[in-house]
């Protein structure tokens, strides 16, 4: 019996072992990364985290940290990476640029309401500042929606479904396009005094608010004016799309006023490197400390693993620091030629003599680019220039003179190849093709003859996957505000002011003081194109001026719609004075076969069936 007792004890112990491991509730587990309401609304640190999330989610179209392949969809660059990407795009889809992001609007409205009801330990000043910042973000969102779709439903409180099966109270109709812009303006005016964040370039303050207002009002104004003037008159009967031309001037005035308010702020055009205007322009955008030009930026920080691959993907091939990547975006000749010469002449590169019978022979690869607008250097790596202190070898091949046929034979080799050796026993053993190309069809090397300099990190190792880059994305800088002001002033007939504003920008680029004495919109359009290249303006500018369908008309004989490249060659013509000089071939890009085709329906992104099926009050956009 005793033994029996022992066995029972043993088995009892086993059962007990199971039973005692019972916690309060075995199935109740604590999530490791979820915060509850009670914790959030009374902790300013966590509320700042909420802002960090909202700022991070602000929609963008094309930036260095997202969707940057789209740079190659417009007339600034082409795709030289793997695959054919934008180079094969026949048209822009009806849903292009769409972003019906009411998720962020809902989250902002939620914050605005909850901070009132649930923040018990915050002072009213703290609450007001948070609320102002939330409203700034919401205004920003509505501007982003407005420039894509026109008028959208203005939802300013949470739409809460009560599960009664009736969704009609949740259906909000589209506002007029004007109402969206007016909402943005009035919100920004209302909060600018309480935003705080003085001196910040990463969190909204009064000047950032006014910079946003300045841009938004300029968009509204030019849409009002040019939608009518172009004769397109794209509109809906309810005014969801289309702004009456009569409102143009008041919007221009608002834009100008907002610009003037920004100009009273602590900003100036960057001029930290006055002896090298080209480097100076590069620094104006990439330099983070002591840069008085930056108004608002999205910042990155390598030390905290908050970084991007832009430099890895777009560094010039010959100086890349990784065995993969590089060269995805090649700026095209179209953009390069938009940069004027400093003497004020047009930027067309001179590659052939006046009669068109022979090349112009340059001593150096950078010959054709001498005396160009310094912003070209700051934006584009062109032949004969350096980056990070290294030569970016851009030479497509050699032009071998054939005396018999009285013509040149073009010879192109692999990257960093030598014109000589077994392949070319009669070669001169000098460079055949540069380590950075260009090559007509190979991926991961420029196919256009140019590389991007703007935004590319000049720090060591930043083009390797191991280190990456933390250059920031500039949302607003003073040069844009000056150009906005110039455009608004010009449209309002204040040409003298307009010239003052634009000449400040040009002077920083190396032009002499007061380089422009007359002004028209076309001039300003080109100025924006070259100053703000790759800063996510080109598409929106062409849209608001209502010229996108003409510039990118899908016609392969239209030099604006087709991508052009520039291939440099070294002349091999022993015994001649031309030997060893450089010549340049302009041609239509071999890898970019499709002309850009912007159609009228692209002016306003289609709403789409899904959105309209869910809310019948949302009317279609024109052509939809």
């Amino acid at each position: 019996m005793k033994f029996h007792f022992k066995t029972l004890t043993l088995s009892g112990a086993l059962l007990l072992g199971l039973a005692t491991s019972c916690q309060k509730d075995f199935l109740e587990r604590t999530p490791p990364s979820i915060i509850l309401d009670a914790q959030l609304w009374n902790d300013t640190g966590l509320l700042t985290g909420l802002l960090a999330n909202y700022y991070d989610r602000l929609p963008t179209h094309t930036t260095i940290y997202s969707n940057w392949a789209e740079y190659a969809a417009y007339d600034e660059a082409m795709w030289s990476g793997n695959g054919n990407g934008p180079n094969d795009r026949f048209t822009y889809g009806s849903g292009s640029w769409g972003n019906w992001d009411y998720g962020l609007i809902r989250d902002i409205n939620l914050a605005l309401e909850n901070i009132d009801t649930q923040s018990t330990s915050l002072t009213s000043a703290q609450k007001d500042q948070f609320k102002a910042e939330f409203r700034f973000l919401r205004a920003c969102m509505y501007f982003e929606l407005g420039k894509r779709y026109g008028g959208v439903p203005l939802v300013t409180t949470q739409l809460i479904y009560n599960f009664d099966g009736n969704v009609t109270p949740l259906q909000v109709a589209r506002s007029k396009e004007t109402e969206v812009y007016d909402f943005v303006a009035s919100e920004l005016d209302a909060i600018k005094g309480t935003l705080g964040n003085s001196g910040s370039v990463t969190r909204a303050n009064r000047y950032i608010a006014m910079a946003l207002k300045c841009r938004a009002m300029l968009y509204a104004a030019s849409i009002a004016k040019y939608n009518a003037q172009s004769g397109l008159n794209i509109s809906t009967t309810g005014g969801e799309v289309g702004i009456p031309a009569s409102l143009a001037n008041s919007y221009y005035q608002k834009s100008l006023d907002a610009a003037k308010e920004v100009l009273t702020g602590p900003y100036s055009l960057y001029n930290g490197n006055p002896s090298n205007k080209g480097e100076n322009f590069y620094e104006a955008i990439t330099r983070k400390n002591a840069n008085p030009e930056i108004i608002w930026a999205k910042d990155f920080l390598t030390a905290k693993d908050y970084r991007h691959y832009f430099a890895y993907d777009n560094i010039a091939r010959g100086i890349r620091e990784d065995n993969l990547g590089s060269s995805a975006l090649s700026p095209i000749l179209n953009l390069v030629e938009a940069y004027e010469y400093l003497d004020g002449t047009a930027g067309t590169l001179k590659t052939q003599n006046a009669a068109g019978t022979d090349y112009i022979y340059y001593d150096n690869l950078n010959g054709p680019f001498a005396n160009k607008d310094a912003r070209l250097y700051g934006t584009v790596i062109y032949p004969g220039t350096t980056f990070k202190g290294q030569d970016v070898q851009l030479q497509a091949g050699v032009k071998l003179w054939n005396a018999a046929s009285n013509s040149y034979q073009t010879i192109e080799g692999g990257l960093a190849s030598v014109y000589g050796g077994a392949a070319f026993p009669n070669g001169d053993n000098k460079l055949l093709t540069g380590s950075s190309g260009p090559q007509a069809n190979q991926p991961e090397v420029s196919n256009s003859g140019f590389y991007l300099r703007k935004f590319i990190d000049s720090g060591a190792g930043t083009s390797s996957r191991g280190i990456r880059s933390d250059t920031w994305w500039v949302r607003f800088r003073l040069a844009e505000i000056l150009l906005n002001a110039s455009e608004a002033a010009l449209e309002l007939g204040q040409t003298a002011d307009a010239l003052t504003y634009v000449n400040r920008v040009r002077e920083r680029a190396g032009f002499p003081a007061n380089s422009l004495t007359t002004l028209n919109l076309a001039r300003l359009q080109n100025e924006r194109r070259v100053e703000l290249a790759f800063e996510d303006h080109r598409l929106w500018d062409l849209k608001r001026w209502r010229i996108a369908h003409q510039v990118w008309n899908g016609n392969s004989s239209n030099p604006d719609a087709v991508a052009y490249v520039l291939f440099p060659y070294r002349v091999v013509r022993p015994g001649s004075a031309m030997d060893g000089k450089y010549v340049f071939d302009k041609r239509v890009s071999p890898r970019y076969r499709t002309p850009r085709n912007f159609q009228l329906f692209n002016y306003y992104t289609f709403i789409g069936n899904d959105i309209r099926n869910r809310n019948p009050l949302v009317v279609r956009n024109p052509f939809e």
Partner: protein
Amino acid sequence: MKSKLPDRKLRRSFQHSLVPLAWCASVGVALGAPGSPAPVANASFSVSTNPAEPTEITVQGTVTDSKGEGLPGVNVILKGTSKGSTTDAQGRFRLKVPDQGAVLVFSFVGFTSQEVAVTNSESLAIKLEAQDKSLEEVVVVGYGTQSRATVTGAVGQIASQDLVRTPAVAATTALVGRIPGVTGRQGDARPGAGTSIQIRNMGTPLYVIDGIQSEEGQFNNLGLNDIETISVLKDASAAIYGMRAANGVILVTTKRGKLGKPVVNVNGYYGIQNFTQYPHPANAYQHQRGLVESEQNYAQIERRAARPVSDPVSGKVLTADELEKWRQGTEPGYKSYDYYDMVFRPNVPQYYLNGNISGASDNLSYYLSGSYLDQKALIEDNFFKRYNLQANLEAKLTPRLRIGTQIYGRAEFRHTAGVPGLDDYFNPFLSVFSMWPTEAPYANDNPLYVNQTHNINVNPATYKESITGYNDDDWRAGKLNIYGQYDFAFGLSVKATGSYNYTTNTFNGFEYTYNGYRYNPTAQTYDLVAGGGNQNPWREQRRRALIERTGQIQLNYNKQLGDHGLSATAVYERYDTDNRYNIVHTVPPNNTIPIQYFANQDYLFDEVVETARAGYVGRVAYNYKQKYLIEGLGRYDGSYLYRADSRFGFFPAVTAGYRVSEENFLKNSGVGRVLTELKLRGSYGVTGADAINPYEYLQGYNFGSGASIFNGSYVIGVRPRGLPITTLSWVRNKTTNVGVDFGLFGGKLAGTFDIFRRRREGLAGLDPNTVLPREVGYDLYRENRNSDETKGLEGGLTYSGVTSKGLTFSVGAHATLARRFDLGYSQTFSNSWDRYRNSYYSRWGDVGWGYQAVGQFQSEQQIADHKIDNDGQGNRTQLPGDIIYKDVNGDGVINYLDERPIGYIQGGNPLVTYALNTSLGYKNFTLNVDIVGAGMQTYQREYELLIPFQNNGTSPNYILEDRWHRADPYNPDSPWVPGKYPAIRRDAGGQANYNRRSDFWIKTVRYIRLRNVELAYNLPKPWLSKVGFSGVRVYVNATNLVTFSTLNDINIDPEITSTNGLGYPPQRLINTGFSVTF
């Protein structure tokens, strides 16, 4: 019928191959008191004989087995009396019987009884047929065992000796083609990889190892020799395992010691591996010619003269003379490099050694085993190794109390050369088609200098540990099960089990920087290419610690009251896991120091995942005379995924069986002598599946979602979550199965057939009737709305026996068809096309859509006459050889509206699988042949297998060889020469031949594969006993020797899932091995 037999005694040897197949008639199993021998159940007696007759004669004779050897101890009884005798050591007997009408009954355990009427012949020669034992066989089912005869669920089983027949690295691979209803596909067969196993194509099954729910990785890495049996619960019988069992259950039992003196077994094999098949890249001539043809073709499309094409390596123009030099390949500088041979080594070894000792005394049983497996990769410096330890002990403390333990230890090592970027096994495969055959891996072919090729990242010269570094992915696990069981006298037993499993995964990666060189032939120097090679050092350690804890209390009750058998089981079980994962990454300052320093750190990852589940299980089974069988079971299941007030759900199942062959009307009829076993089975059950993400019931805010840099400081983001999900509950899996098992001629021919359906109700979907405007900014939460079903049928047949000449044979065949059918309804459509194209309502699942290719253009004239816009550009991009698409809707243009269903499931397990398993034995030889096959599966060619010069590389040789082209690549007026593939155009991924998913490129995969051939020889016992061995077996064996497949023309193995073909194909393994027992 649930029996609590003294299972260790009955569990002896299982002699079947194709599991649920083989059983037959004749005998039932007594489920009475433990230890009683199984009586011969020849239940129909005819009470007839009159013993009053005094005249007696003496009958004598011999009883032998089928081989003619005398059987000692056979009972010889005069029918109708208790009078009888037994045979002696030589099988002889002598008995006095009445001289008329006497019938002798010969019976012996393990043999079919025989009745013989006594005639006048003096000496009887009786030959007893070995009885089919499959009905006695013990089948492992949920929380217990049953005899095969009384199983009512659809349960398949495979035993040890059949499992190790294919020398598989992972246990899942060993299951392929063994059990009807179990489908398999090894989409990537890199060293150490398992096979995707599904039961009836329902999804990944649950694995239960020695009663403990376990992850697939644990099953895959068990020592294959340590497995005693594997049972597969395919229908509602799986429901007893609750919410994770919706896709069926695979039950594993590891070996125990068997009563007797210690048995030592040592076994092992050594094999050499090659790929079943893999495409070869084009040679230099094909490559260069392709470039020239591409330009010629583009020139025609663009209506211009062809431009000279330069060799991208040398820059030389590829003239006809140049091309001819490449064709000859003899001149210096015109060598063709074969990167297939460069990347893959032939005949790499795989070997295995296992030793185990087992035995049992009255109070203690033990099984101790250790094994080592080493599988090298066809890629240098890559390998897989595994060590396994298994210790199973059980002690009887008192006659009624047992305690025991199972201890599992394993260590797995996956080692690869540390190729930067992607998966280390991907890049080598990519290399084969990314390198140009015209460029050298080494500068000037000097192996000291890695050539800076056009894409050095895929230059296989770098795939050496000494150059590129290494990655070690190591898993170590120790698992301990402890149990105690007390058996009460009245049929109740109580068992408590605890299990603790600790698994660590350490990943250690160190990828070096290396340089690339170019040879300068003039200066005869090797020039370092600035920025070449790889200048991106990478060092990373990852650590995962996974704890799995299980507790179980189980009550079992068994009682036989006359003809009524009753058994009941009750279980409480719960388990939780704690999974912690860390990554530390640094940018190492050099290639030599592996220690990580904080100063170089740039990344940290930390994750904790917990899960917890619990369940109450009950089962009651009843049978009457083992003829009518019924079983009901239920599980009350709880999961941490749901809110506290709705955590538990109840899920019942019922199974029933009717053994028609036990009915007298059948037994006594002529049919009954042929059809010796016939059982009808049916089952229906519901299980819950907790398919929802953790903590969806909480609203709140996610910490760590997004971030911003504010004024130079990093601020971690906080993001509001969506609506809390409160009403989404269990997916209910309703499983129905109807089956029949039959045996003919005492089990010589046995078969099984099942029809099944698993309906899933309550799959997550949105309410189609309540659509919230997008402007509310959140989604309505998902509800239990959609449903689908997986249905099909399976069956198997085996024929086995012994010929008079002593040839033993077993031939089995089985097949399975299982496919998903969508029933779901929570969808809204914008228009009728949308509905036609995208509906999930009432149609077969996994239908692949695409264009229908109706031929290829044969001439330019045909293109000119073609009225349909084939390429969306007025056919101006078309050349002879281009694919003509069917304009299904007749609108004159090919666009998405012309897409139609053209394929089956892609990447998943095939819908039809079948297998043939044959085993022949003669004297000391055995020959096993296993054939597997599959069908109704789709393979789509993409990228490297589709587009010429994909990604600036080269192509498989057939794409650049068997193509439409002009007879003279330099003469635009030369005639077209037809080929299989379209005319070559490089960088043409967007071209109409390639950017449309069509059935020109999509193949329905069907294959038959000689999975396994094995010839074994058992050394004769008399020889062995002299040296003290009890058995020595040697064998040669081949796996995947031959495959007939619809993908053979592109050299792609039919199991590969990767659409670009860049996956590690299954191996053809030629192998020799031994097993020594003493």
